[in-house]
């Protein structure tokens, strides 16, 4: 449905987007995740047609909408956009906002589509209200209904949850995912919040400084990050120093202060060693008072079912984040024995 091929975007001679390629299949929900200033909103605006690309092609359906030689105007792209501040027209009611983009349809058709969207977004009771009379979550649903009304093949959402109360975001994100799946619309979302991305998206492109670091599912990003940036940016975790030792005709091993682990390396012809950093997630630990490695409790944050500990390893002085069931109750300064249980050995 959407294909980006080697997209480049310069603003005032400065490259903002650098060689980005990505595809979204029909009905998929994609996400551009990255820190602010990474170019994700610029890319979204280029796909919507608000700005021109400097190189590469954007293909929506089977039509080239942006290329060095063509630029289909935003008004003719038939792409729905949900804005960060919702951009609801303040002088129009909820109904008038939703039907705003339906000017080509006949009155009965408009009405039918309106009723359907009001029902889907649970806004039927608010149809005659003005945007300022609604809560933030309701405003967001109006914005999405308005963008979906003309049945666009592609829906773009720019930080759709950033204007909302953080405690509501996750449940709203699930509602919206259900809505998008019901409408079977292909969607691309921009966010800097990974929880949002994980909740709503099928595939996530982690962006950094104008290029894509990794384009994969949430599970893969968390457990099998391709780059150091992704490993660091997605999820919580710490890195510990390690040495990979490779010998011909034998499996490679990774040696750290917290034990040794099998390493995935190509076969080598002569022995080789290299210094690496091993990714350790907070859920990679088990308590082992007898056989474990000694760590000191630096700080603790109670989170209900779990407690997040910051440990310092006694022999290597490396900092570790560790999530333990909260019935383990260690005070700051206490010495604990822990062991690493790695399902995925990720190092860079």
């Amino acid at each position, binding site marked *: 449905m959407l294909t980006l091929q080697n997209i480049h975007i310069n*603003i005032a001679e400065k490259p903002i987007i650098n060689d980005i390629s990505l595809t979204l299949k029909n009905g998929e929900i994609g996400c551009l995740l990255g820190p*602010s*200033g990474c170019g994700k*909103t*610029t890319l979204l*605006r280029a796909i*919507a*047609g*608000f*700005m021109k690309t400097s190189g590469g092609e954007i293909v929506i359906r089977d039509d080239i909408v942006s290329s060095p030689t063509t630029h289909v105007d*935003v*008004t*003719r*792209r*038939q*792409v*729905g*956009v949900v*804005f*960060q*501040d919702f*951009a609801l*027209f*303040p*002088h129009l009611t909820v109904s008038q906002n939703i039907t*705003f*983009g339906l*000017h*080509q349809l006949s009155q009965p058709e408009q009405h039918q589509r309106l009723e359907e969207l009001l029902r889907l977004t649970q806004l039927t009771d608010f149809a005659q209200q*003005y*945007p*300022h009379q609604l809560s933030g979550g309701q405003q967001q649903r109006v914005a999405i209904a*308005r*963008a979906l009304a*003309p049945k666009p093949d592609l829906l773009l959402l720019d930080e759709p949850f*950033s*204007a909302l109360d953080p405690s509501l975001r996750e449940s709203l994100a699930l509602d919206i995912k259900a809505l998008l799946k019901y409408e079977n619309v292909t969607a691309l979302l921009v966010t800097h919040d990974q929880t949002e991305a994980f909740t709503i998206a099928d595939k996530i492109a982690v962006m950094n400084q104008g290029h894509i670091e990794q384009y994969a599912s949430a599970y893969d990003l968390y457990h099998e990050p391709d780059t150091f940036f992704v490993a660091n940016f997605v999820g919580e975790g710490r890195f510990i120093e390690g040495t990979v030792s490779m010998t011909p005709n034998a499996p490679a091993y990774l040696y750290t202060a917290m034990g040794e682990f099998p390493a995935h390396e190509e076969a080598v012809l002569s022995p080789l060693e290299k210094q690496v950093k091993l990714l350790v997630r907070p859920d990679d630990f088990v308590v082992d008072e007898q056989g474990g490695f000694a760590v000191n409790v630096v700080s603790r944050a109670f989170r209900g079912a779990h407690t997040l500990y910051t440990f310092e390893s006694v022999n290597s002085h490396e900092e570790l984040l560790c999530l333990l069931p909260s019935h383990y109750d260690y005070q700051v300064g206490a010495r604990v024995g822990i062991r690493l249980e790695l399902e995925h050995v990720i190092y860079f």
Partner: protein
Amino acid sequence: MAIIISKWRELDRWFFIGALISVLLALPVLAILLSYSSLSADLWGHLVDTTLAEYLTNSVLLTLGVGFGSMLLGVTLAWCVTQYSFWGRGVFEWALLLPLAMPAYIMAYTYTGMFDQFGWFDSRSLIGAITFMSLVLYPYVYILAKTAFSSQQRTYQDAAASLGVTHAQYFFKIALPIARPAVFTGMALAMMEALADYGTVAYFGISTFTTGIFRTWFGMGEMQLASQLAGALALFVLLVLSLEKYSRKNMRFYQTQTPAKDNTINTYTNTEATPFISPLLMSVGCFSVLAIAFIIPVLQLCVWAWDYIDISMMDEYLTLVSNSFLLAFSTSLLIIVLALLLSYAQRFSTHPHVSGLTQFAALGYAIPGTVLAIGVLQPLGWLDEQINVVWVFLFDEYIGLVFSGTFVALIFAYCVRFLSVALHNTQNGLERIKPNVDDAVLSLGLGRYRIFSRIHLPLLKKSILAAGILVFVDVLKELPATLILRPFNFNTLAVKAFEYATDERLLAAALPSVTIVLVGIIPVILLTRAMK
């Protein structure tokens, strides 16, 4: 005695002062109302049979015409200037406010004189009056619409575009409806000025309420009927005002949504709106309006003034300038004091009605000068009569007019009309000083007077100066009230310019006129500074 003092202390002194000023300033309106206590069926019957219909149609047509004309000009110019980039935009943005410096009556006789000179056509008509007034009053709409357009969220445009709406459709469906309250306010201001105008319609010989009031008062000598006509005119102004209030009532929320904090603002400004008018046409259009409404008449006035200047008349001119400036200056001082007192009443008094009171006192700006003059003359004339009765009884001689026909009456009228201009500035200035500051000073052991002299006065200096300049220029331009209330043989720039023009001595009118226009530029400059 002690009881009286303690009672005085208990009394909300600030409320008392505020109430006193407000009641005093309301006297002219009350006088107009009182004039309705006896209606003469004969006189009104005569009026209805003869000229009332004409007054009514002309005033209504003039008001609606000017409202529409200034909306058309103001909105179009504001839209171009806020949305597109074209040659000279940065200059036009503020220069388009300059016509505000041009009083409509000066505009009218300058162009009429020019047309007569070249023998083109006669602009002495209702259409002519509407055109000239719209040309000098559109800046009211322009400045408010400009603010409204530029404060609209950029994302509205993007949202509309993504829903397949072109830029032209966006203007009519989104931008204009959202800016409607601001446009209406600007139109209401222009329409009130049009209703209040005396100079233009008198010069063109158009019968409206204002010229009718003059004719009834001075021509027919029917003071009460003139008052009653003035009351009718005031009613029209009230109608315009309440229409404006009503139109805003349901739309207060329009601009209250604060735009979301946006760290990607650079990418937003990247989208250039595609204009539906060519940029060249916009430059030409803006320049034409500016030329017609300001540059050409000012140049013409300068040429005439230059032709006319000779030493013999410089004496007269200098007297006019000193008269006008002195009058305007002393009025400004008095009005600033009143405005400060009212602002402080609002700050310090805890009385529930105190803000209503100050709003009431500020209503005077809506009363046309003609109406005001008559409202002032009646109570003061009555007072003079009573004083003379007493004086004759005591000393057996007449002392003549004490209030009416003197500067007291004139300055009183100015106070009623222009207080709101100053009050607006002093109130805003004072509101910016948080009450915490006062508490801080008091907690440091300094007295209330020190709060004013050491904290407020330095902070208010700019607001006070702005208020003073605005009032000064308004007094300088004011025509009808000055014409009626000025002391015998006392002339101002505005009065003399108008008299010369009515006598078709346009060359003589040019020098005082150009002086008024040039001084009038000062507040326009202040306004452009405030916009940035």
